[in-house]
């Protein structure tokens, strides 16, 4: 059997809750027994709303936050011991949501891309060539190397961020809402680029988003996160066409769509009041005629 690039097993993360005077008063389970794996060259989507734990999972995979319990296997190796080490960072890189704030405004494009090259020990003489090569990969002209972030459009900045993430030739790219700050036409081009790069470089993606329509078109498999737990997983087409969990149905029912065909596949359930629904509200929804699930 081929080993998956990323395996997450029973991952948990809880944060302490403290009173204003620093006394421990409880804990929040931000991530609760999450398990999934991504095969080589695949795109896995994590869907969820704010507070669902999707960014915490990304941070743990990146080695930025230690898990409370559970294992993260990258290429079969437990990152528990190597979390955040150069060897770990060479395998996994991240593209953040807002390129406006994830690029250092005081660094030119080539300086930004050179940082990981330097950390990776690439000889100084080869760096300029590699920068050009990376810019070419993200379809930016080599002349952009000397530009500063404020001279670039949103889509161009995100391309630079992608180039920077690819600098160390990682196997896994974690994409945290990579296009939510972009216009639709720009979003389409960036996703197009990611699909191409994935094929060319045999990259594996973990795609984190709340945009279900985008996820449907980009991720082969999807996991729906609700209050820290994966409530539904499976092939994207199957989950979207036949959602089984009430929360997935609610999410799908909430997506604003642009065609009658989409409207037809959207579950018809009444929208609830308030924020992220509680288990009781979900149950009430089902009783209110939410359907046969």
């Amino acid at each position, binding site marked *: 059997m081929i080993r998956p690039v990323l395996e997450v097993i029973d991952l948990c993360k809880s944060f302490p809750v403290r009173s204003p005077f620093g006394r421990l008063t409880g804990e929040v389970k931000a991530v609760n027994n999450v398990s999934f794996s991504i095969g080589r060259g695949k795109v896995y989507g994590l869907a969820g709303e*704010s507070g669902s734990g999707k960014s915490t999972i990304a941070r743990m995979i990146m080695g930025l936050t230690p898990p409370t319990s559970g294992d993260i296997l990258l290429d079969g190796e437990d990152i528990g011991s190597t979390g955040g080490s150069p060897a770990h960072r060479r395998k996994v890189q991240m593209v953040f949501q807002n390129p406006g704030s994830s690029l250092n405004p005081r660094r030119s494009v080539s300086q930004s891309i050179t940082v990981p090259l330097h950390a990776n020990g690439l000889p100084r003489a080869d760096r300029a060539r590699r920068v050009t090569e990376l810019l070419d990969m993200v379809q930016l002209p080599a002349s952009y190397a000397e530009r500063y972030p404020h001279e670039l459009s949103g889509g161009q900045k995100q391309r630079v961020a992608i180039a920077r993430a690819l600098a160390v030739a990682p196997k896994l790219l974690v994409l945290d809402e990579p296009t939510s700050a972009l216009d639709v036409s720009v979003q389409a081009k960036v996703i197009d680029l990611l699909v191409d790069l994935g094929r060319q470089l045999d990259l594996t993606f973990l795609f984190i988003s709340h*945009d279900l329509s985008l996820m449907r078109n980009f991720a082969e498999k999807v996991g729906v996160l609700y209050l820290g737990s994966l409530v539904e997983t499976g092939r994207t087409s199957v989950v979207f066409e036949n959602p089984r969990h009430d929360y997935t149905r609610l999410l799908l029912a909430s997506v*604003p769509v*642009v065609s009658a065909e989409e409207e037809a596949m959207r579950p018809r359930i009444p929208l609830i009041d308030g*924020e992220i629904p509680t288990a009781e509200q979900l149950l009430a929804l089902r009783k209110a005629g939410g359907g046969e699930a």
Partner: protein
Amino acid sequence: MSSALLSVRDLHVDFTTYNQTHKVLKGINLDIPPHSQIALVGESGSGKTVTMKAIMGLLRQPLARITAGEMYYDGRDLLTMPDKERVALRGTAMSMIFQDPMTSLNPVFTIGDQMRTILKYADRRLGRTRSARERKVRVLEVLGQVRMRDPERVFQSYPIMLSGGMRQRVLIAMALLSEPKLLIADEPGTALDVTTQAQILKLMKDLVEERGLALLMITHNLGVVRETCSYVYVMNKGVVVEHGSTADLFAAPQEDYTKALIAAVPRLTGETRFGTVEAMR
């Protein structure tokens, strides 16, 4: 004059920076009939926000200059009316719902304080008088209209004590305080989660229908347009490239730009081909 509540004719706006002049709006025509839900949709830089600011009279002059065109609200000429009348219209007859519920509320005053102040000044502009007690009653009434379960508690809360969706509702309540006829919403709900956004859109739609308001929705999200509006204007680079009823425009877009824009939206059904959007820009 036409029967439209608001009509914009051939509006041109220039921005002057250093020694350059940019033509930002190049002849916008727009009609908002009473009780209608109209969308102005476009990508960043298309001029939709400038159009909205021109309508509200919020363009910063002399940086921005209306070089040509006419605007009528209820048959009254907005561009030639005295400043005092113009100010009296703003926030009363035409009201705005702002985009970001996190930043458009003042963090150091309670919701009640902020809403009472708005009402006080709106009353003053309209030459109405209302006692402090009556103002509070009105504020609580409007908070109830935006489906707050406990208006009294919200009244006493600071913005930080409310969730994003609640704050967005407060902004809607603020816009409704003086019983406007025209609501202008700038990207409502974009800062919120999908399920919350869906609620907010439904709330706005219900309110507009119940109270017989006209709605001008400014957004870049085509899905939101389709859910809430009956007529659409598509903007690109300072011009309206296409307009029509929502049903027609989505079913059979005529212009290349509109076609490409709709094609770029990822579909829930999963048949989006990302490679097909080269026609844009």
